């Protein structure tokens, strides 16, 4: 299980879900991302790895335009999902984010009940016509996030009262409930203990059946365990991108090798 990539994982060729071309990101005058070209497949887990400050999270946040909330952030290049440029002026970020869900580093449940947390997305998007439908959506989402058994008897208690691992799965359920096509995860396990981490990793593997999952992680073991594709970022550059197995066993770039063998990081 340790640093050996899953050899039995089927790396089937899927459709391209997200494609990025010549992406540059600036914070004010400093450039955080340089010339990133990447294609992310549907129904695949893609991991972004790299030392901290390498731009992997920044790039992830470009994929659902969360960087829009930062005034000084400027993005050049082209990112398209299903062939549609997501920075096209005609695209409303709200619409985009309904399609590209996100799970954050620290679990961030709203200070509301578990039910309200999960139902929030479907409610604002008007996905349920009545209470019964909403109940069903919530139940399914919680089941998919493997939280249903723990939470079904306490749907009305506050989401902030759950344990860290449960909170993170609640956030995943919340993201899943809006039925996105892509799920972005920004170091989803960094605040969790090993048991909770294992549960979330198992969940990620399962979510791959339905979604294109992009996960940022600083743990190479995690990337090796859960992903089929891996991208290595260093100092704002995409150094290497390829099948996880190949990256970990036979990296082409010297820097990648240094990183995965622990010499830089």
């Amino acid at each position, binding site marked *: 299980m340790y640093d050996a990539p899953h050899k039995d994982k089927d790396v089937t060729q899927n459709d391209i879900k997200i494609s990025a071309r010549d992406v540059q990101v600036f914070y004010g005058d400093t450039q955080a991302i340089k010339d990133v070209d990447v294609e992310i497949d549907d129904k695949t887990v893609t991991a972004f790895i790299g030392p901290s400050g390498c731009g992997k999270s920044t790039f992830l946040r470009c994929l659902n335009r969360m960087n829009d909330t930062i005034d000084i952030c400027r993005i050049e290049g082209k990112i398209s999902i299903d062939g549609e440029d997501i920075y096209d002026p005609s695209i409303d970020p709200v619409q985009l984010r309904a399609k590209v869900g996100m799970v954050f580093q620290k679990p961030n449940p709203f200070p509301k009940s578990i039910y309200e947390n999960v139902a929030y997305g479907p409610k604002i998007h008007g996905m349920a016509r009545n209470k019964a439908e909403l109940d069903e959506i919530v139940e399914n989402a919680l089941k998919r996030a493997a939280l249903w058994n723990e939470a079904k008897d306490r749907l009305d208690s506050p989401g902030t009262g759950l344990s860290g691992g449960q909170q993170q799965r609640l956030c995943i359920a919340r993201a899943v409930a809006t039925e*996105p096509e892509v799920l972005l995860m920004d170091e989803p396990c960094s605040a969790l203990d090993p048991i909770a981490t294992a549960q979330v990793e198992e969940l990620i593997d399962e979510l791959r059946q339905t979604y294109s999952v992009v996960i940022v992680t600083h743990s190479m073991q995690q990337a090796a365990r859960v992903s089929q594709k891996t991208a290595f970022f260093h100092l704002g550059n995409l150094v290497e991108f390829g099948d996880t197995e190949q990256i970990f066993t036979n990296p082409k770039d010297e820097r990648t090798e240094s990183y995965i063998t622990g010499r830089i990081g």
Partner: protein
Amino acid sequence: MTDTTPSEGRQPRASAGEAVRNSLARRNRKQMVLQGFGIAAIVFAITMLLILLTSIIGNGYHAFTQTHVELDVFIDPEEIPEEGLPRGDYDDVLAVAMGTHFPDVDLSDRIATRELTSILSNGAQYILRDKVVADPSLIGQTISVKVPVSDPYDQLHKGLVERDTEEQFRRLDNDAIDRFDRLDDLDLVSKPLNTGLITQADSRFPELAGLKGALVGSFWALLTCFVISFPLGIGAAIYLEEFAPKNRWSDLIEININNLAAVPSVVFGLLALAVFIGWFGLPRSAPFVGGLTLALMTMPTIIIATRAALKAVPPSIREAALGVGASKNQVVFQHVLPLAMPGILTGTIIGLAQALGETAPLLLIGMNAFITSAASSPFDSATALPTQIFIWADSPERGFVSRTSAAIMVLLMFLITMNAIAIYLRSKFERKW
């Protein structure tokens, strides 16, 4: 983990895209409405501020000039005998001087004379008296004096009395206006800068009332306030922040200080009235007592600001000084306090600015008395700027409306200056640790 394969479970759901697309316009409209409310609220608040300022300035600027009449006065030794100074019939002398421009007015007719001299301010005779007393050799000569006109004519000259209003609703009848216009035609009327606003103390007559007494009173009160609250506030803050053990007592003091900062100011007035004046027998209306009261109110502000400034000094400074063997006292007084000083001064100035505008407690200790001379010590009776505003705002004469506004402009100018100094200090000495 239960079902994992899509084949036996649900079909992959369709995206929410459709629902989102359908509702997006409505949702964005809702957000626009929210933003609209926000902008409306801000516009409302700023409009009110603008109305306030324009109404004050619009009324107040009139008071920065004062209509004067220039008269050639013969200091008649019969009316003003040299040995009788300062007594003398100065108003008769003025009436005669006025009469030279109105040959048609019979000066032996008392009513007609009074109507004529009503143009002049009641204080005109005292201005003349002071001139003669200062230089008795003027007796027997004809001198040219410029005296203020009384309030209604001042208003008329400034265009605040509408000439086309019907006579019965006007404060001046047609004859009065004609008489004034005759003086105006003779080029005797002028409207110089009203220095009296600053150089004179209060008066019953708007055209003579000035702010000197209030300015001096406010100065003494603020000085007392500063001398007491600054050391006390800093001392208390240093103790609480650097020395006090964290226990129930320090908690109690902390809660107490936060509460004091929110106690209504009128309650401090009651305290001052009962304790300082009632029990200790300190003089009423004295700026010293006012300053004492304001000091108690300002102290919490200074304590809170000082504690924040002390907190902002990083522990590394303390550790460095302790590390070379300085005592706790030396660390605080030689290292931490100097570094915190800009923050403390900023907080103090803001506290003093608040104290300068404070009115209610000063009313209760009698600093709204009618006093026509400036206080020479903090124990004399005096008014303060805000209480003077209150007194004038309460006065029925029209002229006091513009005087009140002018006094407010003076007060606001002081407040703006003080706050500007505080902002300057903050930006100049602000340190990022």
